């Protein structure tokens, strides 16, 4: 490649790449692989709304199900999965799908009922011992059906 062409290539690639990387900031849009990197930027209300699937046992205990039960190992992907299911009125379907996923898994043997729900917590009070949800909306509930042991 001639020297002038190589210089033009270097200049063109540099301008194109830097413009592309900066562009989302001009437009204020997030995306991939070009982003305005909004993580950690949005002020958070001291009240957090958490979209999750909660398992209940016959003993009256309950605990949130981990991301793996929702088919992902990513926390945020699990959060979005539940959020989108609630917003698209498909929480019941998600509930049954998760129940089918966990019904053979010994780690969830104690659970007999699931809830797809939105809980609101005071995030600061939470860390000082007050872990009760301030508000709860149950979008769907379903049993964890197990085959009888043979």
């Amino acid at each position, binding site marked *: 490649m001639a020297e002038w062409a190589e210089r033009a290539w270097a200049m063109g690639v540099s301008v194109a790449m830097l413009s592309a990387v900066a562009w989302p900031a001009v437009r204020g849009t997030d995306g991939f692989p070009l982003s305005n990197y909004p993580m950690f930027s949005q002020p*958070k209300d001291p009240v957090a709304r958490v979209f999750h699937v909660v398992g209940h046992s016959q003993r009256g205990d309950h605990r949130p199900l981990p991301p793996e039960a929702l088919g992902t190992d990513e926390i945020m992907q699990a959060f979005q999965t539940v959020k989108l299911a609630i917003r698209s009125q498909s929480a019941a379907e998600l509930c049954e799908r998760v129940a089918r996923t966990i019904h053979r898994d010994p780690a969830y043997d104690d659970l007999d009922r699931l809830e797809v729900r939105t809980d609101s917590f005071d995030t600061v009070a939470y860390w000082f011992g007050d872990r009760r949800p301030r508000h709860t909306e149950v979008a769907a509930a379903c049993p964890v059906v197990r085959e009888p042991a043979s």
Partner: protein
Amino acid sequence: MTLEPAPALRLAMLRVLIGGFSLGYVVGRLPALLGVMRFRESQFRPVGPVALLEAPLPPWVVVVTLVATVVLGVAFCAGWRFRITGPAFAVLLTWVLSYRNSWGMVFHTENLAVLHVVVLACSRASDAGSLDALRERAPAVSPHWRYAWPIRLMAAITVLTYVLAGIAKLRAAGFAWITSDALLNFVAYDNVRKIELGAGYSILGGLLLAVPWLFRGLAALSLVLELGAPLALLGRRIAHGWVLAVWTFHLGVLLMMFIFFPYQLLGFAYLCFFEVERLWPARWRARPDGVA
């Protein structure tokens, strides 16, 4: 263009290391990358080049694309037929990671690696230390600006991404990002969300909430590091100081929020600020093709 010339081996080493990271990332994340096939179509929110699609791809296409990415990744690292395999790997890497980010959640931990691979693919990163150089019995190449501009561009893109993150904070919260409890609330919020999603969280982040002033200091520091990032382009010493500071910042994010930025924390994001050719085996360094 008044760039200080760089040795071909420096760019080659970046190809090997950054390509190696990206390849390892794809292989290591295969379960997650394949896991998207289990998501419902209603979750599909295409981003980047995937926005060209109106519906998710058939599963076999996802699998074939991933296999092709891994194969091309090996060719990229080895510098084999790089003029073809380099851009092809960059395109496929962008595609597979965009596809994974197209299910309602964009992961900002992967952007910079993709951008660096794209720059390397547009450069002559296989003029040394590659199968191409070995096959063509390439003559010795002197340090040249053609090996310097991609490295400089990678550094510029790195600092630009931090500046954008700083601008995003100022746009969203202004200087209240520093003067208010914005960061404290964020750490509290993020960790509560993790606990309530049944995932790992940072105990340290929770404990430190008892010290609110600490979060204002950390917020100010993070903004200084982000908006001051372009200073890293002024000289090697400043660059190394900035790299150390920003790496510590990512370590802090890991310790306080349990968020792991692998490309940054493992150091690959900042290799373009260092003379990485020194990592190449010394006995091969003098050879024109950089290989045994």
